[in-house]
């Protein structure tokens, strides 16, 4: 029985085969890699957000956190990652959206030894610079990325980590995390 090429699934299969083969045939675009932005699409309180992959040191499914007797805001406990014990913070609490009900993912920050817990993970996108848009009203962040046709506010982890470090040092914490341009990060 010959496969029916009119079937959408068969078409998609052919498309995927062609794309896979093409990835071997096309020349490497190593020179353009500076313009490439890898983002991680996540979901907090049902809303889509994005994290810059360059800010992260790892991603793993959430596991039960070891309780830690501390009253730091957003601290969920201790998390283990590749032989390191890291403080686990609630990303939703850190961006001022209240406490998370059920976290399923941990993201390990690269800038500081801490882990961030969030609720949903939608995927990863490799974006071109044209997909990064400046936005003034996107939940307080200054930037948004176009992932799969939809805009996602880009969370600036550097400010959040600084705020956490500041609160741990007794500095007054910011009322809301600051949005910094990812130009620097993107520019690294």
């Amino acid at each position, binding site marked *: 029985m010959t496969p029916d090429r009119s079937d959408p*699934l068969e078409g998609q299969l052919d498309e*995927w085969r062609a*794309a*896979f083969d093409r*990835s071997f045939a096309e020349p*490497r675009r*190593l020179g353009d*890699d500076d313009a490439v932005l*890898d983002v*991680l699409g996540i979901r907090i309180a049902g809303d889509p957000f994005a994290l810059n*992959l*360059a800010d*992260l*040191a*790892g*991603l*793993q*499914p959430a596991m039960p956190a070891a309780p830690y007797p501390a009253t730091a805001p957003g601290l969920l406990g201790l998390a283990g990652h590749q032989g390191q014990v890291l403080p686990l913070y609630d990303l939703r609490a850190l961006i001022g959206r209240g406490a998370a009900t059920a976290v399923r993912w941990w993201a390990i920050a*690269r800038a500081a030894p801490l882990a961030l817990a969030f609720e949903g993970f939608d*995927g*990863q996108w*490799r974006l071109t610079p044209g997909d990064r848009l400046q936005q003034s009203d996107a939940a307080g962040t200054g930037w948004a990325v176009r992932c799969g046709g939809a805009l996602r506010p880009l969370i600036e982890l550097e400010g959040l980590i600084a705020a956490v470090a500041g609160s741990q040092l007794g500095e007054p914490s910011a009322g809301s995390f600051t949005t910094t341009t990812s130009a620097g990060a993107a520019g690294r």
Partner: protein
Amino acid sequence: MWTFGRKLSMGFALSFALLLLIGTVAYRGVELMTQTSYQVTRTHAALTHVEALMSLMKDAETGQRGYLLSGEEPYLDPYRHAVANLPRQLAELKPLIRDNPAQQARLNQATAMIEGLMQLHKERIETRRASTTEAAMRVLGLGEGKRRMDELRGVISQMEEEENDLLRQRAQEVESAASGVRMAIVWGTVAGALLVLAAALTLNRALSGQVGTAVKHVQRSSAELQAAANQQAAGARETATSMTEISTTISELLATSRQIADSAQRVVVIAEQTAGLARGGDGTLQAARETIAAMRRQIDLVVDHMLDLGRKSQQIGVVMDLVGELAEQTNILAINATIEATVAGDAGRRFSVVADEIRKLADRMTASTKEIRLQIDDVRGAVNTTVMATETGSKAVDAGARQFDDVAATFAKIAGQVVTTTDAAREIELSTKQQATAVEQLNVALSNTAQASRETEASSGQTSQTATELAEMSRDLLRLVQAQPT
């Protein structure tokens, strides 16, 4: 009270006994007289022979004397005659006095005397022949012969006297017997006359009394019999009329019974046809029931297959969960590889491309898994829907089967009822035929009864006529026995 017949029989019996008595007495008297007569005759014969014997002895003496005197032979003829006849006379006399021993003794004595005399006569005759007349005369002069002769006469005379006594005695006996017979005849006649007179009086009284009373009874009974015969004739006429009416009604009933029998026969035919149709319907129902059962089995098979399909879809879902999990883990690994490539800087850029390709594949795998899961969910939903629909169909088939069972049971009941109806109709037909036969027999019996009633009426008329004749005969008989009009 003695009956008339008994009195009559008694009168005849007495008369017969009297006649028998008279006859017996007379017969015995005659018999006695006859016997006596025979004895008298024999006595006379004995007297005759005694006298003949005496006469012969006289002849012998006379001849002997004449010869002695004369010497001439012719004088001896009486002697010779006596010699020749004496033995015969003695032989004939002996049986005549056989019943009298005294006479026999006398006869023996006389016989000896006769023989002695005859011997004496013979000797004298011989002597005479041999001698002379004087010598003979001397012999005679001796008187021996005379003495012996006298003795013989004495004996003979006794014998004659004896026989004469017997004759007198027999005469007295005859007279006595004749007197008895006469007495019997006279007194028997008188007694018979008296008896007949008494019987006549008695029978006359009985005739005019008992028979008259009986005849009057007969007259009254005849009148009653006549009245009863009239009533019986009237009743028989009414009975015959009623029987005729009943016979007409029974004929109508017979016609109705035959109509009922015909109707019952038609009912039997229709019921048998209905039973045949019911049996055919039962067979069709049975076939339909088997078809429904096969359908039920097929539906059960389909349900089993669908449930199996559901279970296999579930297993495929589990496998897809596994695949999804692998895709997700691949995706995470690709992301982490990208992160590591990013950290590696320029050295990691090539690896970053491969990691991105791996991530894309993981994404596609995840998307495909989601689609497959959707498809599987659709399949499972379709399977569930099909199973539910099939179960609904199965329930419907069950309900249909139950309804078919009900219909089959109803058909069986109908068939049973039809059989019962057929049997009942047959019984009705049979009973009605038996009833018709019985009614026919009843009709025949009623006809016979009507005929018998008519015959009874006729015989009642004859009875009435006979009663009338009997009454007239009774009057005649009463006139005859009473000699006066009633």
